């Protein structure tokens, strides 16, 4: 195994740990944290592919930077929604947020 494959093993494991959290958590903020782990594993992939396969270009680096920026915006919006939800429901459990269902 070369360095790239070892980094890919780590990022794949991180991505699937995030998916495990996404599937098993029932708290919205905990689900958000799992999504952050998945975004980070994708960032590691972009940066590693750029560094080891195409060292002359910078596209992977820029994708990672823009993903980090958009993740910040996403988390801020998601937390605004979570706080509003908590005001209406007194809970951030996903099983109790059934307002759109009836």
């Amino acid at each position: 195994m070369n360095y790239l494959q070892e980094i890919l093993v780590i990022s794949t494991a991180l991505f699937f740990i995030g998916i495990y959290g996404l599937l098993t958590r029932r708290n919205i903020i905990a689900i958000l944290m799992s999504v952050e782990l998945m975004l980070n594993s994708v960032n590691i992939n972009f940066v590693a592919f750029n560094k080891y396969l195409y060292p002359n270009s910078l596209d992977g680096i820029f994708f990672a930077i823009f993903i980090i920026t958009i993740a910040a915006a996403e988390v801020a919006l998601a937390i605004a929604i979570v706080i509003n939800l908590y005001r209406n429901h007194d809970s951030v459990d996903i099983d109790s947020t059934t307002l759109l269902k009836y």
Partner: protein
Amino acid sequence: MDTSKIIFYLLGGFILGMALLAVTEKKIFRSAIWLLFALIGIAGLYFWMALEFIAAVQIIVYVGGIVVLIIFSVFLTHQAEDDMPKTGLSRKIAAGLAVISGAAFTIQLFLNNDFNLSAIPFDSDVARIGTAMLETGTGGYLLPFEAVSMLLLAAMVGCIVIAIRPEKSEKNDSENPPSFSNPPTRNPEPVEGILN
């Protein structure tokens, strides 16, 4: 086995261990702290790859911004010492099986792939990144840079609009138009027993 490889394995083990703790911990505040350490470990991995700019961005934005936001929202919505709602064992086993088979499939895909690594060393000069970010020609990223700045502005305004508490007038509460964040016909009791 040289020092660089040992540091790499230590970093990888640290990241994966902290991430596992973050998704399995029962108390949400501790889970956020494990997530913080996992993100710091990822920044360390960027440092190990000699990409200091990305590592700095990771620490500033993720560790200094996103995790702090998550901890704020935990304090606004939880008793931090309470346990989170539990998941059933069958759901955990099903998720674990799906995750392990998916990870095994993906890992064998790229272990069998023959990457032809480039022999040129990567030049991680920050000036190169800065020039490309404000470049308009080929390889330039000025347009996405501006687009993402507009996106951040829109997200900021949207956050304020969503999270602001509507002002209630004390005299004639009935004449208030129904606002978005206080729906008049909400169901105060969440229906239990349908999804469990």
